């Protein structure tokens, strides 16, 4: 399993763009990168998944450089409700034997 490293915490202000970077130096060829969001007292919620280049959905963007040794989750114009823990997961798809192991996550605090 590829080990992931994320900042433990980040602070931001409402309306700013937030970029959270995850390092995964030993990512394997068939590994995918997935980000989850977790609010206090709730289960994690899927945000975005990608393999290479850029992926965008209604919530966030995911940037993956060509060497895939890192990835950056970008949250545009954050609000107070984006205060949460964000997890970066790297691994095989489940039908290829993946297990979906969570790391420590990044605690994002958005201030007014």
């Amino acid at each position, binding site marked *: 399993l590829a080990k992931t490293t994320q900042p433990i915490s980040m602070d931001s202000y409402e309306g700013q763009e937030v970029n959270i970077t995850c390092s995964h130096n030993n990512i394997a060829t068939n590994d995918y990168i997935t980000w989850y969001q977790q609010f206090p007292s*709730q*289960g994690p919620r*899927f945000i975005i998944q990608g393999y290479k280049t850029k992926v965008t959905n209604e919530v966030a963007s995911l940037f993956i450089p060509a060497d895939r040794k890192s990835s950056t989750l970008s949250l545009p114009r954050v609000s107070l409700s984006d205060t949460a823990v964000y997890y970066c997961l790297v691994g095989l798809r489940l039908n290829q034997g993946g297990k979906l192991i969570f790391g420590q996550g990044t605690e994002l605090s958005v201030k007014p």
Partner: protein
Amino acid sequence: DAGITQSPRYKITETGRQVTLMCHQTWSHSYMFWYRQDLGHGLRLIYYSAAADITDKGEVPDGYVVSRSKTENFPLTLESATRSQTSVYFCASSGVVGLRETQYFGPGTRLLVL
């Protein structure tokens, strides 16, 4: 209602007692998971299942037993509860939407072992 549910939502038990946490999903997802999350920490995978009657250990399986006789249910049993098993337990199931594989988590069961 479609979704993933867990029961009970809160449970207090005593050391040495057997406790079973229930998880039910209505999507017919093949994959189901059990995680524990201790206060102020990330999630740790206990067990997972790729299909009915197929289960495998995660990161922290000791002290837990699972079964998967039906696709929609994935109960987790603590055979003899210990205080170190006080935690929040999350069940999840996984499905594929287009090319995207994602997990859906239940609301969690908060377990206190006295």
